């Protein structure tokens, strides 16, 4: 029983990790007033280019670099469209997701074609010396892919940046009252640009985690809605870092149940378990968890004097 629980915790962490990375990145840009519905597309693109980079170079760390670069490039286009051109952020995001799905599927078939099912060089697991042998916590927490530990570091960094630095202050100000921020001398467009690029980098890490660290291959549409779940987690978490991470863990746990319940001999229809994280997300977005209080200027482009 204890062993099962430890495995359940470990797989919850593993399944929640891409959500946590993507959601904490998305949180930065939403706090700055830009909604990246394209999160799913960024993650999928990153997963593909991560796998490609890792396969081509034989080095999974270079693969992660490729993934981050690809997602940041995509987020730069998103930032240019939504900040400079003031395009409708919802439409841009949906467009990106469709484009990413089509493009990665096409490239995958062209490049990998016959090689499908072949495993790519993945990131190593890191057993933390001295801790991984602990009876319960060892299995639960300390036998994860290196990217998990690194990811937690990044999330802490984002929390610290938002709350303890002048850049974080500027991000929060341009997302709530861009006019006031502008008057206080904050460069609104530049702040939003940087925030969107941070989202891109984090989505890149999330995509790389899925293809390089977790599955060790690329498959068509392999993110399978994880980007949307991350978006839902931001809403569920009330645009607060700690609560967003908690929401990701909840979604991760719901997904992990799919594998755990049958193993424990409890029979629940698989379809229901597959649906569970999305159902939770739907309830969250519908406001069941409480009144939603998004950043005031979320999705609203800023133009001085208008």
């Amino acid at each position, binding site marked *: 029983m204890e062993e099962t629980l430890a495995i359940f915790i470990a797989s919850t962490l593993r399944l929640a990790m891409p959500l946590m990375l993507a959601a904490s990145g998305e949180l930065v840009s939403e706090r700055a007033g830009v909604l990246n519905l394209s999160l799913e597309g960024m993650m999928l693109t990153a997963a593909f280019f991560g796998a490609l980079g890792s396969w081509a170079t034989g080095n999974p760390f270079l693969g992660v670099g490729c993934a981050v670069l690809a997602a940041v490039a995509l987020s730069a286009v998103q930032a240019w469209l939504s900040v400079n051109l003031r395009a409708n952020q919802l439409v841009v995001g949906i467009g990106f997701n469709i484009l990413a799905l089509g493009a990665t599927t096409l490239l995958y078939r062209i490049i990998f074609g016959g090689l499908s099912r072949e495993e790519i060089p993945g990131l190593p697991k890191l057993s933390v010396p001295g801790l991984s042998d602990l009876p319960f916590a060892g299995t639960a927490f300390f036998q994860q892919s290196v990217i998990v530990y690194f990811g937690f570091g990044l999330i802490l960094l984002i929390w610290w940046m938002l709350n*303890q*630095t*002048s850049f*974080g*202050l*500027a991000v*929060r*100000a341009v997302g*709530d*009252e861009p*006019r*006031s*921020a502008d*008057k*206080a*001398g*904050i460069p609104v467009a530049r702040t939003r640009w940087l925030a969107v690029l941070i989202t891109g980098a984090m989505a890149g890490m999330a995509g790389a985690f899925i293809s390089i660290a977790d599955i060790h291959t690329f498959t068509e549409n392999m993110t399978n809605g994880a980007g949307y779940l991350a978006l839902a987690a931001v809403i569920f978490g009330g645009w607060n870092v700690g609560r967003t991470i908690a929401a990701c863990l909840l979604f991760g746990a719901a997904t992990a149940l799919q594998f755990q319940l049958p193993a424990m001999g409890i029979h629940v229809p698989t379809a229901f378990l597959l649906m569970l994280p999305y159902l939770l997300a739907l309830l969250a977005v519908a406001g069941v968890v409480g009144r939603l209080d998004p*950043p*005031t200027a979320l999705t609203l482009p800023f133009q001085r004097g208008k």
Partner: protein
Amino acid sequence: MQFGGKTWLPPSPAEALEQGIAMVHQHFSLVPRMTVVENLMLGQARGVLNRAAFAARISDIADRFGFVLDPNAVVGELSVGERQRAEIVKCLMRDPQLLVLDEPTAVLPPSEIGALLDICRRVADSGRAVILVTHKLAEIAKVADKVAVLRTGRLVAQADMATADMGALVQAMVGREVKPLDVALDDSEDSAVAPPNQPGFALVCDGLTVLDRHGATRLDNFTLEVRPGEIVGLAGVEGNGQSELGMVLAGLLAPTEGRYFIGDVELTHAGAAAVTAAGGGIVPEDRHAVACVTAMSVAENMYLNKLDRFTRFGLLQRRALNEAALVQMKEFDVRAAGPDVAFSGLSGGNQQKAVLGRELTLDPLVALVAAQPTRGLDVSAVEAVYRQIRAAARRGVGVLLISSELDELIAVADRIAVLYRGRLVGERPAEMNERGAIGALMSGQGAI
């Protein structure tokens, strides 16, 4: 402009601040979700935030000028007065030589005004100059050293407060120019209409009170009766509760207390459709956002409240609608290329005439509430609007005319009630020799 001994004109607000001129605007530029100290650090602090050091500076300034401000309070949870103090601290942190406050008391509840004036006094005593822009003479009398009166962009009076004659200042404030409006309306044959004596009331406001979401009183026990055929002007400086009253009477805002009738029908919580059904014609203050749908055609806008007349089996009879609109456009002199052009293409005057036409053709029409109906209109359109309103009154409609243009009210209304800080502070006949007295009521003289 002469500033600090040299001739200089600030090219931008940032430059002015750099040179020591700080301004507290009527609309605050604070982020409600952040704390006071975070707001003040915005754009000032670099790198890692040191909240404690900044908070100490805030407390220091607050102490020096004799007020209290919690640096760690979230701005969105503060009262308007506290937010204003945060704005003032933001200015004082830059150590300005000149502090300009634009209508600082307009947003404050009476209890906080005294404290604000004390702060102004202390800032002045610390060797800085303070300019206080306000409509309210009583406040100036309390705190200022010098007073200057601006009217329509010109300096019309200047005095030392110690020796100033209040009566002369009031006269200077409300001024008197002959407007073409009076001539035009006086020339018309209907100028001397006595209010017909009809029984009952067209419009009754009984103790209407509106508290805003911060709990501040916007409309305070407002009681007014308008008889059929009477035009009652409601004078007052803008921002003294007119908008809230207009929204309540239009059925767009539920009053916190009080009741409201058109004819014999109570409409307090009934909503806009019921107001229309009861014969309440509403010309809203905000023409673009509330009165019309600018993307729709002229005809659709003119019959927006009567579209069911032109609907058969759920389908709009567009030809009949356009024909009817054409007739109404002639009647109300709405000049447009045709009934099916977009409303947004019309001039402000023609838009307003169309809205007025729509409301005046309600059947039955018992009362008309027109809020700032002539704002932004040229003289001929102003004249046309008032001719229509007076014609309606002659037909027995009770009219409540809300306007900040005192001269227009005097020319059009039968009697004038004055709104100040959400309260009805007095009522005078609409006569030329009353304008000094009305002006004094508008500026809060004898009202506080």
